[in-house]
């Protein structure tokens, strides 16, 4: 990441609209994301928070408008997007039958992100407080612990753009605080985070913004 801001935003939306089951969730949404930005998507249930995140991650085709990655449409930039995106959805892709280590090794290989060596994974798991749970099948872990397994990916030399859907769900207070700090630090180092949560954050990055989809609709 260079210090001078590029003229074209890293991620942008142009006239984005999303319609679900004949209900317009939002339209004419303009959004810009530069290195260092932290964006919290807020709004009541059903206001389209998850849909917006899925649109940004290229998982869903927009009803209108487009998402641009470095100025070019997302559809033409699949590999570029894959290289720069870490997506953790509401369901995080953790297999209950596999151990935390096996899960992280596979997801790391799939996303080509940084190191998938055993040491790196064990260190990351220790960071999220799962020391001693490395080789236990994930379905025996609690919901909060499973969430921690997914979030351990944030400690494995991940790509710059993080899109996280409800990352704090099921985490205890200490866990939330720790992840908040980690997100803020990532942004200070030139990364970008887009996430949804109902928590009010105590630790924010310098370029923190909030997008309230509920207010837009009103």
């Amino acid at each position, binding site marked *: 990441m260079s210090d001078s801001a590029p003229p074209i935003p890293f991620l942008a939306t142009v006239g984005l609209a999303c319609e679900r*089951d004949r209900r317009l969730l939002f339209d004419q949404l303009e959004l810009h994301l530069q290195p260092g930005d932290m964006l919290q998507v807020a709004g009541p249930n059903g206001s389209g928070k998850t849909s917006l995140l899925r649109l940004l991650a290229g998982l869903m085709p927009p009803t209108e408008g487009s998402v641009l990655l470095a100025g070019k449409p997302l559809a033409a930039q699949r590999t570029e997007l894959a290289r720069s995106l870490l997506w953790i959805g509401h369901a995080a892709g953790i297999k209950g039958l596999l151990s935390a280590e096996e899960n992280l090794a596979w997801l790391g290989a799939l996303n080509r992100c940084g190191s998938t060596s055993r040491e790196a994974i064990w260190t990351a798991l220790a960071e999220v407080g799962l020391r001693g749970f490395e080789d236990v099948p994930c379905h025996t872990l609690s919901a909060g612990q499973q969430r921690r397994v997914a979030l351990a990916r944030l400690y494995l030399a991940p790509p710059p753009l993080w899109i996280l859907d409800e990352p704090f769900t099921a985490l205890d207070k200490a866990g939330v605080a720790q992840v908040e700090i980690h997100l803020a630090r990532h942004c200070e180092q030139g990364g970008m985070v887009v996430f949804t949560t109902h928590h009010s954050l105590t630790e924010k990055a310098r370029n923190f913004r909030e997008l309230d989809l509920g207010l837009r609709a009103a």
Partner: protein
Amino acid sequence: MTMSWTWLHKLGSPKWFYEISGRWLSWLAWAAALLIGIGIAWGLAFAPADYQQGNSFRIIYIHVPAAFLAQSIYVMLAVAGVVGLVWKMKLADVALQQAAPIGAWMCFVALLTGAIWGKPTWGAWWVWDARLTSMLILLFLYFGIIALGQAIGNRDSAAKACAVLAIVGVVNIPIIKYSVEWWNTLHQTATFKLTEKPAMPVEMWLPLLVLVIGFYCFFAVVLLLRMRLEVLKRESRSAWARTEVAALVERRS
């Protein structure tokens, strides 16, 4: 979207479709009624009887057009599917889902007339003849598309899934058809083929041709009617659809 595709999107605009189809509809309906009327009268009353099967062969004047249509409609579904998937044309989605039940009915008519024809010819209501068997499988393929469209709640996803299924189906149809024909020759059940006459005299196949074209017009009319209704439903929030519905209600009362 590039500029070169704007005409396609204009074509796909619901309002434009509704206006144009309204103008075509009466012409097509007249053509269908006329052609089917002429064809039926000609085929049933004036065409000569078959030297082997007598008058029972006349059912081909219903069977063949229905079977033709059933097959073409499936191909049309796949074409609409490609257009819908590649160019994201909503009207193609509408066409796909509205045409599928018509195709299934045509399949059913072809099977029914085949069975009725089978009784005097083979002495049984159902014989595992290659054509009838293929038609039965085609009916199942139609059922699959209709069932999938109804099972998926989200309208756009349902249309896309049906499009994929129709494309997979259309790739498979020739394989199914050839394999069934081959299976049939191996087992040698039927000696007669319903339509494969070595040489049908002109006075026999000309009414058939008229009827085939008539059936196609009839299909176009039914499809347009169904599509217009669906377009009105989908556009019920827009101003033009509201005025249209108001006008329709007024004309009724």
